[in-house]
């Protein structure tokens, strides 16, 4: 917006006679450029102001809950909205519902764990897909595949969530999870992968759903990066007798290494903040750490969207929600800043950033 203003200058209103005296001063003001430039600058600062505005509002709103819960807000595992129908109690001068308790550890871990599962699956799949699209497929076919990747990225998350809740989750619970659960050896460290496979709402389904949403982001970025690798080193590698796999591992991927890390962190940013799809398949188990890979769990975003109706009526609850939002905001901001720094170092490829591509 700011960039286009100066280019509009050359054939400005200076040559044409003013139609009316009255509007002249105003017209000069508008055509002069400097107020527009000023407006442009204002427009450029606004995103920053908005971010600060959100941050400051959240911090102010979060204070009572953080004061009430203390460090337990991050380390505690018990989350309870308390009993609003009972008599309110006062602790340390703060009025709250009896039994109210905020321990967000399960939600924080849930957010990180689902994203981790998503990345573990999405990274090899996306990089493999990107390599195949660039190096294996004929150009026209590759274009179609690229198009599908971008279409996949454009599916609204609520649709993926609905499909996950109705079809994919039950399929995982009845057809996939039992195979894992029954075949993992009964060793002490592996008990997390054994046990009740649930009903399709839980950690594994959430992670897989996120993987589906993250793959297009990582794959599309990786495809653009790999396309930028010059042909000569690759031809050289093949001339030296390397197999395609060795060539990819030793030449192509190291060439775009840092960019790939950036792509992955972009995907991570999406996974961390994804709300509605996860809320629909996570099982909404408030305040409980998942007992195994298939158990119902909760993420920060899922708690916010599922329980806002209850929280909004109570000052302390809404304060706790502000604190949760703050934690999520900080985590995603850190992931995004990391991604920018890494990606900018490497290349100027157009990156699919953010949600709803």
């Amino acid at each position, binding site marked *: *917006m700011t960039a*286009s*203003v100066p280019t*509009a200058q*050359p*054939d*400005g*209103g200076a040559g044409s006679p003013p139609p009316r005296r009255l509007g002249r001063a105003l017209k000069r003001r*508008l*055509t002069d450029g400097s107020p*527009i430039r000023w*407006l*442009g600058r*204002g*427009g450029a600062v*606004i*995103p920053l*102001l*908005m971010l600060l*505005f959100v941050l400051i*509002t959240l911090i102010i709103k979060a204070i009572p809950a953080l004061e009430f819960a203390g460090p337990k807000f991050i380390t505690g595992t*018990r*989350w*309870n*909205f*308390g*009993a*609003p*129908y*009972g*008599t*309110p109690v006062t602790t340390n001068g703060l009025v709250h*519902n*009896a*039994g*109210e308790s905020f321990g967000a550890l399960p939600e924080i871990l849930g957010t990180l764990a689902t994203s981790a599962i998503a990345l573990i699956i999405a990274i090899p799949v996306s990089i493999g897909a990107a390599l195949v699209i660039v190096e294996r497929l004929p150009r026209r076919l590759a274009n179609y595949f690229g198009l599908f990747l971008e279409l996949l990225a454009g599916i609204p998350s609520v649709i993926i969530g609905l499909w996950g809740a109705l079809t994919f989750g039950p399929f995982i619970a009845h057809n996939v999870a039992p195979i894992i659960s029954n075949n993992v050896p009964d060793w002490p460290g592996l008990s997390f992968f054994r*046990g*009740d496979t*649930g*009903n399709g*709402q839980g950690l594994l389904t959430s992670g897989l759903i996120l993987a589906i949403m993250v793959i297009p982001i990582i794959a599309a970025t990786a495809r653009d990066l790999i396309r930028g690798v010059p042909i000569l080193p690759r031809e050289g590698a093949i001339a030296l007798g390397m197999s395609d796999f060795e060539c990819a591992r030793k030449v192509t991927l190291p060439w775009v290494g840092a960019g790939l890390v950036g792509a992955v962190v972009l995907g991570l940013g999406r996974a961390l903040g994804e709300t509605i799809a996860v809320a629909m398949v996570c*099982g*909404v*188990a*408030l*305040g*409980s*750490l998942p*007992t*195994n890979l298939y*158990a*119902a769990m909760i993420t920060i975003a899922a708690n916010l969207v*599922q*329980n806002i*109706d*209850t929280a*909004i*009526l*109570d*000052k302390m609850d809404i304060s706790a929600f502000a604190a949760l939002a703050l934690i999520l905001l900080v985590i995603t901001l850190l992931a995004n800043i990391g991604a920018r720094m890494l990606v900018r170092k490497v290349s100027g490829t157009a990156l699919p950033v953010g949600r709803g591509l």
Partner: protein
Amino acid sequence: MAKNIRLVCTAAALVPLTVLAAACSSSSPSKGSGSSPNAASASGKQITETGSTLLFPLFGAWQNAYSTANPNITITSGSTGSGTGIADASQGLVNIGASDAYLSSSDIQSSPGLINIPLTVAALMINYNVPGVKKPLNLDGTVLAQIYKGKITNWNDPAIAKLNPGVSLPNLKIVTLHRADGSGSTFLFTSYMNAQDATDWPSSDVNTTITWPSVPGAAAETGSGAMVTTCGSTKGCIAYIGISYLSKTQPLGLGEASLANKSGKTVQPTHSTIATALASFDTNTPASGAQSLINTSAAGGYPIINYEYAMVKKSQPSAAEATALKAFLNWIVTTGNTSTYLEPVNFEPLPAPALTVAKNLINSISG
């Protein structure tokens, strides 16, 4: 041409400014009923409702009948769960927030202008999908609490067998279903368990949203409809569902448990047992309308019944809107409480004392 470009640029630069201004001005939403839901509503031609999925089937019938009789009034309704109903009404987003739960002390504190008007009487069933068991199972608050806490995990548990002598219970894992959204049904169900056994189900776990104990295989469902369909497709499930869904649960083969009341008798949810339970409470309805009808001491009374409430802001955005709303609510508690509407969903009409309270509360609404 260039002029136009500049104008467009200026306009474009102004957009974020206005957005920011709007964001700033809306940062204090609970300041009162200044902003009306929308223009059509302010003229008294539209009445909006969200909330209880338990009441929803009946509200739909009310809505149809009333707007057929009054074609100039448009009524919109949403089956969102009681929690959302209360929240929306308190924020002035809708005229009526339907809820199975009355306002809590913290609700009243945070939204002083909100009143709860009793509309009709409903009941909550405990449904189960246990193939082979024909006779209704007997359950009580203690056993239900143990089941939802994961202490009882199989239908052939001795504690269940003890309540059901002579019934051969299958060796089948219990799958507990609970509501994921803020729900009046959750409030009623947890109230019942707390009233029956305060040690096994403490009062801090009575709310429209609670922290459910972690039980392997337990599932969270959004809305009464999801409870019905999931329970229907899950062998061994147990769920709490409003009696308005009886016509949906029966074809799926779900049973309705006979629940123990305060006197220890186990009772099926029927027209007469609900009426009996209601009779044991109806003389002392408080002027606020907020009354728990849980765990009746009447021997033949069903223990989980409740008033369905309309959460309404006492001061409506305009006089026209208040008049339209009052007319509709008055119609609900009179014509809407006849068997034509209540019979299909197995609800009971408001008893006389509650009706008086409801009419007084409706009359206190102003524009």
